[in-house]
């Protein structure tokens, strides 16, 4: 069984988040309390209950297979933090 510190570290990695030691300490206490609190759900006998996933059960809507208006390359790149002509520019991902 993991302790709260291990949970917080593992979940931070999965979430692509990092924390200072001070933040981690606050977090561990809060996280433990929140997890304990949400275990209230355990008080209900749910074995025979079907999970509810969607309120609106629409049929998938279909349309004719004709091109619709879409974003231009310039529009799609308008908010890019860094761009290079028609590409998103990213730091190199392959190590030497």
């Amino acid at each position, binding site marked *: 069984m993991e302790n709260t510190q291990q949970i917080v570290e593992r979940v931070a990695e999965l*979430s692509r988040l990092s924390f200072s030691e001070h933040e981690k300490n606050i977090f561990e206490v809060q996280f433990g309390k929140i997890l304990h609190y949400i275990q209230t759900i355990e008080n209900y006998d749910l074995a025979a209950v079907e999970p509810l996933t969607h309120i609106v059960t629409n049929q998938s809507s279909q349309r004719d297979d004709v091109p619709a208006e879409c974003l231009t390359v310039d529009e799609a790149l308008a908010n890019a933090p860094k761009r290079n002509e028609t590409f998103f520019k990213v730091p190199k991902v392959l190590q030497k």
Partner: protein
Amino acid sequence: MRLFSDSCTAVNKGTTTFTTITQDILRDIDQRQSLNHFLSVGKDSAIVQAQQSDERYAEEKPLALDGMVVAVKDNLSTRNFPTTCASKMLGEYRPVYDATVVERLAAHGAIIIGKTNMDEFAMGSSGENSAFGKTLHPLNGDYVPGGSSSGSAVAVAAGHAHASLGSDTGGSVRQPAAFCGIVGYKPSYGRLSRYGLVAFASSLDQVGIFAPDIPTTATMMDALSGHDANDATSANLAPTQAMATLDEYANKSLTIAVLPEEIIKDCSPEVLEVYKQCLDILQDNGITLLQAQIPANDAWIPTYYVLATAEASSNLARFDGIRYGFRAEINNDDDDIMTLTRSQGFGMEVKRRIMLGTYVLSAGHYDAYYKKAQQARRLIYDGYEHIFSQADALFLPTTPTTAFKFGEKLNDPIAMYLSDYFTVSANLAGIPAISIPAGNAANGFPVGMQLQTSLFQDERLLSIAHRFQQLFQS
């Protein structure tokens, strides 16, 4: 507050114009900047839209929302304004398209005055979690206006808009409406398009409306509702006819379900007193009250926080620093751009919810938390079906307390989450719900009372709310 009907009457009489009203509002917003309720204001564009409304009025061809000054929460995409979600992550973001509800506002002649402050990514109940500073309560700057749609509520309460748009995932429209003494309406899930609303928890998120009164709310709903092919969860229903049916329940005999004593016992004395006064008023007016049986009320908040955070962790995974929004500076080759960007770009509450959501969805915990929460969600939904088979609507407080002080709950997430106690269940069940002003508490702050009814019975909800608002005002 500024009633849309008063403005229309004055313009019809020729005593003013929508352009003058808009100029007055712009001046008022400027004078009360300390409220910090707007993140951007569209001075020039608002004046142009007001002039167009005046022209259509002069030609006697007004559109449904002509002259209505509307503020929009900063998580609804707008081509002409930044859309920041009150986050450093989207500080510089300018959408290249309008949300469907924003497009429909413009198509019906509304004057979009600006974008409003909020809790970051709509996560919070106090308006304190904004990267651009907290929003102040219009009556007392030491108190929170509620959240997450803090700026939209304050804009209407301060008379700086006839109406505003917010979003309600667990009470983010109804709770600030109650704190600020105005109407806050969360339509049935699927009734207003979510296209262009920056997603927090997709199965719970719903665009909502703030206004001083029900007729303004209904007018706006009729103009903005209706199916939208761009939103896969949009209900395939015609626009509402809420204005035409507003008086349908004016004289009908009504059965209203009310909460049993044990559920309301943790409310503050001020809220309890107003709730009981309201019940007396309803009974005095011949309305039948029925003690509701509420199953699984202890599961409301835990179920909500499991599902909402799970969906949030998934939705907010898109903020990677690559395609749009903030990107952290990379100083050496070992830095992970995504982790750095997210750690610097998100505030603490957003991180807390991403972490919780990631945990409940992670291997080994999915069945214990996420699946159980979905099962509890079914219990909550079925419980409402049972209530509405016996009663026309459920009547309950919107919030357990009136507005609280800044900082009071900031370091205690569970205490903050509990301020949504009476609102989250409507999102879980998808049903329409509305908060209406029910007078002031002994402490001087407004108290809101809530009505909820069956899925897609939005016209019924607005008609009963109209009747109740008149009863509580008289």
